[in-house]
């Protein structure tokens, strides 16, 4: 009997070796013909399929393989592991802005893109986007910007109609100049349509408001944890609680199966949608719901939520080729193509002003002029500094909000718990 309990540890080892095995899957391999295979690691949807084909056609001898992980939450630990162990990261990796600062702390894990002629590209990106992935002395550029999470508010036309609200996107946008007005609209909606939630879950709305509420959130620019002293965070929390109390939430966690199904079934009427989410909505709601979802302007002043970078890990065995590919994918042309494919909104001013983007109408969303809507949100933009454990703290605050939605904690208890969890995590 004494022998059996070792299984706990055996399981541990197996788990870790499993992780290790899956982490090793991404190495680059040259085929016999001397071709170079570049492995690109992404999460969610980057919309690069067409660009890969084009690049392969114009660069004979280069093959591109994208390895995608659906959820950012699953991708992040893998990426950390690949980079720390020096194995498995492939040749080009996507880095989301919320996890960028922890990688910026170890710039040696990445190829300095300035060594590969990135300097002259700085004008191709919004200045703050360029800054985010540069070291503070400017001697090193770790990543090149892909998209910015330009904000819109997606809404279900049929549900708005049932609630007696306007359905035209201009008029809908005028309903909510501020988040307070959004809250008021929500109350109106719930009075008429109690069966559906006004939005999916409070976590998303909270995050949106937070990203509009100043130049930093949980951390100040010296990476000091300020979650309980930054009044903007608390104010955003309180506003979110007000919405929970008004019963606006459908209480469906983001990225859960019910959330996916909710787009199809009309379980909720609005969802703050960063540009990259349009692809998700289209995929989940399916062709039969074409035209039911539309995009209006987001309450408050412009905000970003999300947005990514491409970097070349120092462990890549084809750094030169990888850097060229990253430059190609993040060029104004590449960003425009990704926008057309998955509505990932460009971070390149040239691409933003490109008529292709400006005049782009998304047929799935009633030909909504998403290029214009998101473009306006980006212009009003102030960059927000996100510290090292930003996303992990966000997870904990999200859980606390969820507990309030479930009625398991009083708002004050939940806030205290979120702060406490954040402090324990960051210590």
């Amino acid at each position: 009997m004494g022998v059996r309990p070792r299984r706990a540890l055996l399981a541990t080892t197996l788990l870790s070796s499993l992780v290790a095995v899956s982490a090793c899957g991404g190495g680059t391999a040259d085929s016999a013909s001397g071709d170079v295979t570049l492995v690109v690691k992404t999460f969610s949807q980057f919309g690069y399929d067409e660009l890969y084909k084009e690049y392969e056609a114009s660069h004979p001898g280069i093959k591109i393989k994208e390895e995608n992980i659906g959820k950012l939450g699953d991708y992040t630990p893998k990426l950390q592991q690949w980079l720390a162990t020096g194995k498995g990261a492939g040749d080009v990796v996507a880095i989301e802005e919320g996890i960028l600062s922890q990688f910026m702390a170890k710039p040696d894990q990445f190829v300095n893109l300035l060594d590969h002629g990135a300097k002259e590209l700085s004008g191709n990106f919004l200045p703050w986007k360029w800054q985010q992935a540069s070291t503070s002395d400017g001697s090193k550029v770790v990543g090149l910007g892909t998209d910015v999470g330009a904000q819109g508010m997606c809404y279900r036309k049929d549900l708005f109609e049932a609630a007696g609200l306007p359905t035209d996107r201009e008029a809908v946008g005028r309903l909510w100049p501020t988040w307070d007005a959004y809250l008021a609209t929500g109350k109106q909606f719930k009075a008429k349509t109690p069966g559906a939630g006004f939005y999916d879950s409070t976590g998303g709305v909270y995050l949106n408001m937070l990203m509009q509420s100043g130049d930093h959130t949980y951390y100040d620019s010296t990476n000091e944890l300020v979650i309980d002293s930054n009044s903007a965070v608390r104010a955003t929390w309180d506003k979110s609680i007000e919405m929970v109390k008004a019963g606006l939430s459908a209480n469906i966690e983001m990225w859960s199966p019910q959330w996916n199904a909710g787009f199809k079934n009309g379980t909720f009427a609005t969802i703050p949608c960063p540009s990259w989410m349009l692809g998700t909505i289209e995929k989940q709601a399916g062709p039969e719901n074409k035209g039911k979802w539309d995009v209006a302007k987001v309450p408050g002043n412009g905000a970003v939520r999300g947005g990514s970078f491409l970097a070349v890990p120092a462990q890549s065995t084809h750094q030169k080729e990888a850097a060229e590919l990253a430059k190609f994918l993040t060029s104004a042309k590449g960003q425009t193509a990704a926008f057309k494919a998955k509505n990932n909104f460009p971070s390149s001013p040239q691409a933003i002003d490109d008529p292709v983007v400006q005049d782009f109408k998304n047929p799935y969303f009633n030909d909504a002029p998403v290029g214009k809507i998101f473009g306006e949100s980006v212009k009003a933009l102030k960059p927000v500094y996100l510290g090292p454990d930003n996303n992990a703290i966000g997870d904990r605050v999200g859980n606390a909000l969820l507990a309030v939605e479930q009625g398991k904690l009083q708002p004050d208890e939940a806030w205290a718990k979120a702060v406490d969890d954040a402090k324990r995590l960051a210590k």
Partner: protein
Amino acid sequence: MVTDLRPRTAPSTPAAGSRPPEQPRPRLRDRISRVEVKWSPYLFIAPFFVIFAVFGLFPLIYTAWVSLHDWDITGAGAFVGLDNYVALFADPDFWNSVVNTLGMLVLSTVPQLLGALVLASLLNQKLRAVTFLRMGVLLPIVTSVAAVGIVFSQIFDRDAGMVNGLLGLVNIDAIDWRADKWSSWTAIATMVNWRWTGYNALIYLAAMQAIPKDLYEAATVDGAGKVRQFWSITVPNIRPAIVFTVIMSTIAGMQLFTEPLIFGQGSFAISGGSLRQFQTVSMYMFEKAFRDFDYGYGSAVAWMIFLLITLLGVVNFLITRRSR
């Protein structure tokens, strides 16, 4: 001990150099064969011990070594002695996960084994298509854990789940299965029970078939009913099988991981609910080691799981032994 039963070669007589030169050869062969006889049994059993050492003993010891360090993803940091364990003992999230694991362990093991007992005694009767039925109870074990997790997560869904639908028929309000400890534990224990009851039933069935029929005949003559026979003959006679299943389910229950992970939602599912309602110790270990990359702390959690299982094993053993 190994005994060499072959006749020994006569000790070579060191006669004068008149002997032919092949004299040393049989000697060498002899020595080889003696070594072979002495050591080959060890060689035959070596694979198990080598594999155990590589995959069992080494990780066990290495995990203990890691747990004494401030060990993050970049490798070994400072030696911190028992600091990780001290922090662990003061960590409410850890104790919460221990309580959750034990709660789900009770909710899954007890009904599972009782159900298996009943099922086995039913299958031990003269039934039509008995082989078909016996194979049938094994089906759930063939299903992948992930599939079980996904399907049952839908069955226990708050808005569109089958269980809430059925409860609605008798006018019981929909239950948010993930929001409370009792409800999430019930849902997860149901998955475990569904999957393992048949397996345990077959083990009991095998043990029951080894019970001599005359015991039952004698009992019938003495006027004992079916129920009395079950408790006084069947159960005592399959005690070794019961002890085995109790210990095996305890070990499995202490390592519960996949079902609660899939039952969780969103991108932070490893937390097992908004307030960690159903986060098990294994999940907590995984969160610490592979999400926060605190390998030292994660290893300390792993060792605590090991110690807890040992402790529970001993308790199990003592209880089942005394109740003879």
